[in-house]
């Protein structure tokens, strides 16, 4: 049954990609790209990667699609007819694709337990991590503990993306009369959003602190909390969202999250261990691992929340300005 679902979903994914190639209406392209992200998340669930599906559904389908829609609001929605010939790209793609298909025949068969990927480090993670780290979710163990240094790097990359976007666009506060929400007439939407936003923030907190036991964690929770505020900004307009959490405050929050993460590493060095060696944080190594993982997940969550919301603010204030002019 799982194979059959896999077959159908992958076929739908391929059809969606094919349709995106031929569509000229960019608005439709972005909507289909949202569907594409949703479908790939569904396939990740089917292939047992629930944490990845969680991330793809919230980050890929949510934030990317919203950012692309804002960009389209500024750049226009019609793609002009291409001037160069399509024959050469088609030829290149077909040749590369044929070579890659030939290459896949050397791959080990899908899903076989004896494949080389499953031989070396994976069995150790599967068998030892519940004992060494004490968490049921192996993905969180590997992400936060075994590969904690890597995750620190990823958090810094997300932070520097914020710096890049802000230095390119910047967030400017506008005079109130310039900014008019396009959805001001939708009263039903106002009421419903006000009801569900607290629920969404509650759910984000659940994802943040339940990530050790089920799917979830700092990355996902940060994005979901940011999505709640994005909904607020979409429905009620940017000035009201600025009044709740301003861009300046978010910049402080983003750097605070990264520093929180790094300070855990420094503290463990102070305690006599290596950088990010959580075993030294408490007398009992397992308890130390728990403290370390909760704090660094919190740091990741704060950074991702602040970065995603601030990027949306930057795009949104540009869109409002180009709309007013």
């Amino acid at each position, binding site marked *: 049954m799982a194979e059959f679902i896999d077959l159908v979903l992958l076929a739908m994914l391929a059809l969606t990609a094919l349709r995106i190639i031929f569509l000229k209406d960019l608005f439709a392209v972005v909507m289909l790209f949202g569907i594409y992200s949703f479908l790939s998340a569904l396939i990740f669930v089917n292939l047992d990667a629930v944490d990845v599906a969680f991330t*793809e559904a919230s980050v890929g389908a949510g934030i990317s699609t919203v950012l692309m829609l804002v960009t389209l609001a500024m*750049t226009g929605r019609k793609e*002009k007819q291409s001037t160069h010939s399509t024959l050469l790209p088609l030829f290149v793609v077909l040749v590369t694709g044929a070579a890659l298909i030939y290459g896949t025949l050397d791959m080990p068969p899908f*899903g076989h337990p004896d494949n080389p990927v499953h031989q070396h480090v994976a069995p150790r993670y599967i068998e030892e991590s519940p004992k060494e780290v004490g968490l049921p979710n192996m993905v969180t163990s590997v992400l936060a503990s075994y590969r904690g240094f890597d995750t620190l790097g990823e958090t810094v990359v*997300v932070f520097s993306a914020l710096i890049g976007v802000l230095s*390119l666009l910047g967030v400017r506060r506008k005079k109130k009369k310039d900014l008019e929400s396009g959805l001001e007439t939708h009263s039903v939407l106002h009421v419903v959003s006000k009801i569900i936003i607290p629920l969404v923030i509650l759910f984000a907190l659940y994802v943040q602190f339940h990530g050790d036991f089920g*799917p979830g964690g700092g990355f996902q929770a940060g994005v979901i909390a940011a999505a709640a505020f994005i909904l607020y900004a979409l429905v009620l307009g940017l000035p009201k969202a600025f009044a709740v959490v301003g861009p300046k405050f978010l910049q402080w929050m983003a750097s605070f999250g990264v520093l929180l993460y790094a300070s855990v590493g420094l503290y463990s060095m102070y305690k006599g261990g290596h950088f990010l060696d959580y075993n030294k944080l408490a007398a009992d190594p397992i308890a130390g691992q728990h403290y370390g993982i909760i704090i660094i997940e919190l740091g990741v969550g704060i950074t*991702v929340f602040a970065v995603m919301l601030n990027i949306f603010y930057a795009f949104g204030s540009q869109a409002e300005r180009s709309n007013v002019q």
Partner: protein
Amino acid sequence: MSFIFDYYNYWIVVFLMMAGFYIVISANNLVKKIVGLNIFQTSVFMLYISMGKVTGGTAPIVVEGVTQYSNPLPHVLILTAIVVGVATTAVGLSLIVRIKQAYGTVEENEFENKDDAI
């Protein structure tokens, strides 16, 4: 039939990768190019997750009575790759917005011509 099931995921991955690649090299519009890049990126994610799947295994979260789990390592790599991917997408889109403000167009051939005029 089992031959098809053994390689089906990889073939779809190659197809998606080439679809994204085709959009990137043939489209003039920069937003569409970003969509193509994202499609390409997702196909790579799909390749990793397909390799991590073990038939008969289940998601790598400990439950009682299960011994066979899928490989957690690709999941970790891809989880962080998705977040970094959206961060780079955001930077790319903000570059597009700046290009629109500077040249008044986001079509590749049009602003190349304007560059020559300047």
